[in-house]
């Protein structure tokens, strides 16, 4: 099978965010970048599919040279090769989906995995857009995946208050949510092997963002809360405050 996994290069989830000099983006000074946590489930799903059904896994990332480091992390987990689609890292989700679609359309993918969302801009868009551009089915935020004998797949996703089970046929675009699997940690051997695995580089056609950022701001500062008291004795006062001051009960 020809399996693709789209990965993004994002600030570590514990990073303190500061607005940079442009007033529209973060200040990247001192920020550690990681493989997007949701994409770890996508990489794991791709590797498990390869292990069961044979084939090859390619990790695709749209970005500048800096993202190679993140592609290497996927290679260290066991992905066979990388595809770097060179473009500014500020592209919106449609720009990313279009670049990926253009680059892999002719490579006859059997399945394309994405993460549910990229934890920088939290858009949740690339997978569905990629599906629509390529004319393939897409199912987002899956927590269950089963291959059936007839080339169809059964997918499970969490919805408000329950689960939704759907079926589709490959080739398809699937985005992964926490709960689908337990991503493997790269082993030393994998990290060594990753250094020798190929990363193909191509240029993305120029693109102008459809989503234009006017400015970036920090959330309004919240007043320090009130410690009502200690232990059981504080309970009546808390309930009074919730009832009379906050009016939430």
């Amino acid at each position: 099978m020809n399996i693709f996994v789209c990965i993004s290069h994002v600030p570590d989830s514990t990073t303190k965010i500061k607005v940079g000099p442009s007033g529209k983006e973060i200040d990247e000074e001192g920020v550690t970048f990681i493989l997007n946590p949701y994409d770890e489930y996508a990489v794991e799903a791709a590797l498990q599919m390869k292990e069961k059904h044979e084939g090859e896994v390619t990790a695709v990332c749209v970005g500048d040279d800096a993202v190679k480091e993140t592609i290497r992390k996927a290679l260290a987990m066991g992905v066979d090769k990388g595809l770097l689609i060179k473009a500014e890292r500020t592209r919106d989700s449609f720009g990313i989906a279009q670049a990926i679609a253009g680059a892999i359309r002719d490579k006859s993918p059997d399945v394309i995995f994405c993460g549910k969302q990229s934890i920088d801009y939290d858009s949740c868009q690339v997978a569905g857009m990629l599906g629509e551009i390529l004319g393939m089915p897409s199912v987002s935020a899956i927590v269950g995946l089963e291959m059936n004998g007839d080339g169809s797949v059964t997918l499970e996703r969490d919805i408000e208050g329950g689960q939704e089970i759907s079926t589709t046929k490959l080739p398809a675009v699937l985005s992964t949510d926490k709960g689908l699997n337990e991503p493997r940690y790269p082993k030393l051997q994998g990290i060594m092997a990753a250094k020798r695995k190929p990363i193909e580089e191509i240029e993305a056609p120029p693109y102008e963002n459809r989503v234009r950022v006017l400015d970036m701001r920090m959330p309004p500062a919240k007043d320090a809360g009130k410690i009502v008291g200690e232990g059981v004795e504080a309970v009546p006062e808390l309930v009074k405050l919730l009832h009379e001051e906050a009016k939430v009960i």
Partner: protein
Amino acid sequence: MKAIVFVEQRDGNIKKSSCEAIHAAAGRFDSCTAVVLGPDLGDAYAGLGAYGASKVIAVNGDGLEKYSVTAYAKAFCDIVRETGADVVLFSATAMAKDLAPRVAVRLEAALASDCTALSVEEGDVIATRPVYAGKAFIRVSLSTPVKIFTLRPNVFTIAETSDAQAEVERRAPDLGEEDFSVQVVETKMSSGRKDVVEADVVVSGGRGMGAPENWNLIEELADVLDAATGASRAVVDAGWRPHAEQVGQTGKTVSPSLYIACGISGAIQHLAGMSSSKCIVAINKDPEAPIFNIADYGIIGDVMEVLPALTNEIRAVVGK
């Protein structure tokens, strides 16, 4: 500007958050049409006038009873094109996260997801949305003629409703077998408690609850408040609670009126999922726990003692 709102139903019930989207559109744009796909809801369509929809387009039949991302995208986009709407709104639910990106590509429209504010300024629509898990906010403008926004549930509150009835128009979709390349075959709804994303009150527990057996304390408090139960990742990963309850960066984002965090330290990834709650209460035995930095009210104490007392006291107030 003409707005169209995608209205979601599950099992014959219209989502409250879709009504929030209608209300948000009606208050900002020149007209608001609501589109409802799926099983026939009878009289409920006209009732959407209460939130400000002047017209409702109801699309039934032809396999739309069950959700199919591909068929819904086609049927919905056909209507948007025909009505000539400039602005398309969804509530940012699980369905919208699946559907809106495909709709955006079909309509050659830009999409801003999970917006927490929307305003019309000099003829342009400006949306505010959280990024980096709510650690920052951006304001965005969309460059395409048709603009799509998904709105975070529970943020655009419904200030008032009227007894207006919307004009209802029924349509049959133009769909073929090839449009159903993805098909939902089953939905399994867990009975009983509300979902964390939709509830107005959430009671969440973390590792400080000590053991899964102690969750009855969370459940009892949730019962008197008619609340959903949430959890930190630590307890979900430990298998104490299901993943669907996880609140935070790799779980769900909630913004209820009241969020009660019990034995949760307040790690940045947890805060990412709940810091937009309107009122936050923390119960933690460690006065230095970071959750107290964002809580509106805190009690320093043992959850095992404080929770039963809190449940009793609230029961006395709400009379349950």
